[in-house]
């Protein structure tokens, strides 16, 4: 299975929703503490992973997302508080085609609306989440309720106006863009929540991953107690994601350098796979929508792996 070596430390990887062999990787120099950033677009070929193109930035990049309406648009979240928009069809000199600069601090999360396809969210360490559309340079809405860094803001795959956010204030919130305030506040963990994601087959189910090494699955209708708690990681959970193909499959990657696959409905044998191919923090991962079972992960060890579920990422 192919490996790609990035120049900087990897932070996020996202499969293209249009081209099944294409993925975007956001990277930052010096582990994202100080220095530049680079947005890669990679291509899977029979000869391995090759770079399709790359864009350099002044500050590190922490997340990236593909447009759902235009196969050439990539959006990156930058440490200097800006949101960069890239067009792969244009030459590198013309890029970025847009830089949205409203956040006061690092933008840590960026997510494109898969239902309405015209808007995207950015979550920032300035405690706010901003709603943007591709045609406007100003944000449409600011969601200001969290009391600490917002680490993730994720659209609901079914409902065009609903999204969830995960924050260092130990709450996960569910929002509706039509409402002024958050709809549901879930005190999901006793420690910072670094990631959340919606179930692609059950629009009321949410998964959160936290510094307390636990992954909790929630039904937002009964948010007092989690549906299940998945234990197994030995360091903070950096990212959690529900599978686009299987209802109960969850992928998680963690500072313990592993990526794990879980079946949250299995009571005893929830942990299905553990991939320990990274030699530094495993920070970014994605599951392809177009190819069932295709996984990608990136980490601070400057590598990007793409492999099939059930196989060893390091195998050739």
């Amino acid at each position, binding site marked *: 299975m192919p490996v790609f070596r990035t120049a900087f430390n990897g932070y996020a990887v996202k499969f293209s929703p249009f081209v099944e062999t294409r993925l975007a990787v956001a990277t930052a120099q010096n582990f994202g*503490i*100080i220095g530049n950033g680079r947005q890669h677009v990679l291509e899977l070929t029979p000869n391995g992973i090759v770079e399709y193109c790359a864009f350099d930035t002044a500050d590190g990049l922490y997340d990236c997302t593909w447009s759902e309406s235009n196969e050439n648009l990539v959006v990156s979240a930058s*440490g200097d508080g800006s949101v960069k928009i890239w067009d792969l069809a244009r030459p590198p000199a013309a890029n970025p085609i847009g830089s949205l600069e409203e956040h006061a601090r690092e933008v840590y999360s960026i997510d494109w609306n898969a239902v309405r396809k015209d808007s995207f969210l950015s979550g920032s360490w300035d405690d706010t989440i901003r709603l943007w559309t591709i045609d406007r340079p100003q944000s449409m809405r600011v969601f200001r309720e969290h009391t600490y860094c917002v680490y993730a803001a994720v659209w609901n795959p079914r409902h065009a106006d609903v999204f969830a956010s995960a924050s*260092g204030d130990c709450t996960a919130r569910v929002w509706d863009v039509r409402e002024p305030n958050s709809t549901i506040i879930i005190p999901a963990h006793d420690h910072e929540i*670094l990631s959340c994601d919606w179930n692609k087959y059950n629009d009321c189910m949410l998964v959160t991953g936290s*510094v*307390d090494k636990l992954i909790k699955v929630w039904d937002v209708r009964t948010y007092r107690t989690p549906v299940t708690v998945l234990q197994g990681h030995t*360091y903070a959970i950096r990212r959690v994601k529900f599978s686009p193909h299987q209802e109960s499959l969850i992928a998680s990657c963690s500072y313990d350098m592993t990526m794990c696959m879980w079946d949250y409905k299995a009571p005893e044998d929830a942990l299905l796979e553990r991939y320990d191919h990274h030699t530094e923090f495993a920070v970014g991962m994605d599951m392809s929508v177009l190819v069932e079972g295709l996984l990608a992960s990136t980490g601070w060890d400057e590598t990007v792996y793409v492999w099939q579920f059930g196989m060893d990422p390091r195998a050739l």
Partner: protein
Amino acid sequence: MEMEKVRLRQNVLLNHLKPVTFPKASTDLVATVCAAGDSAAYERTGVFGDDVVIVAAYRTPICKAKRGGFKDTFPEDLLAPVLKAVIDKTGVSPNEVGDIVVGTVLAPGSQRASECRMAAFYAGFPETVPVRTVNRQCSSGLQAVADVVAAIKAGFYDIGIGAGLESMTVNPMAWEGSVNPRVETQKQAQDCLLPMGITSENVAERYGVSRQEQDKAAVESHRKAAAATAAGKFKDEIIPVETKLVDPKTGDEKPVTISVDDGFRPNASLSDLAKLRPVFKKDGSTTAGNSSQVSDGAGAVLLMKRSLAMQKGLPILGVFRSFVAVGVDPAVMGVGPAFAIPAAAKAAGLEVGDIDLFEINEAFASQYTYCSQKLELDPEKVNVNGGAMAIGHPLGATGARCVATLLHEMKRRGKDCRFGVISMCIGTGMGAAAVLERGDSADPLCNARPIKDNSLLSKDAK
């Protein structure tokens, strides 16, 4: 500016790596008192100063009425020795006793109460110690002990004596005066008049206890009583009584000291018992051999709170845990223990399976056998030193004498034998049972001793 940003980013990331401590109490789990009705008492290891404990329990020998060792003994001369014994053997001062309660059945009430008062005087109690009697037929002796326990717990007094007395030589079972014709209007009232033997036949018939089973139980009772007497097991609990025997022909009085039960037959065999004819019903199964004997005897139990016993330095023979009286159909009064024993166990927070030793009064082999089988009791744990068929059943005394027999046997058996039950059926359709515990089952909490000198403390402590 740049370094500030670097520092902040570092801090955020480092906070993700801080070790995580989980809050102690999860809100998902709540600790509550366990409502299980099972043997919670079994796990009890603490002792409580307000437990009512038995510090002494003694009995006279039990002798056959009209023909045995006490045939010429006045009832109060049976009670006085045991009352004196509980005082002498413990060193408790008689004027500390708050009340003496005597279970006694057949004698006229006021007269027997006066006799008991006299017995207290004979035993050396001062006039300041009151006396009363109690009558719940065959359970009177046990009821007397239970009443003293209740009064001590209620704070009426600190030290009490529960006793039992019956001389069936002086007071045979009889009905004085006429019978109210009203009894014919209600079966249960009428059944209260049934002779006890008829109720035994009813039990044998209704629950299918055969003549042979009954005779076997009687043989066992005699065998065990004989073995216990021969082994000297009753020596700890029997108080010898100095009395007289009068020759019925010549009228000569002979002073005697009665110190053993005289009711049991060491050589009783199944064939001997099979020869006896049914006494109460034609073609019945209850004979004189498989019924309890008519007897004379007395027993006394000294009770106080544990804290007081420890203060006085008295060894604790047993702890009174629970008492229950239940009502059953008068026509089959013998089934009383089958209901009373589970109720008493439950009241003590135990199950019948937790009880290590039983004293079930053998009023009749039919009811005794039925109750043992119904409760699925281990025969090795029931009436191990014989029962009323061999030893005798002086009605009011039985309950109190069973306390002595049970506790002394539990003491011999060791710490393994922790809980015991005394139970009997009661004429007119009742049953009573009490749970007692070994005195030394639970360790006193405190092993602190008073310090004699301060040499181990620093100078500042002085």
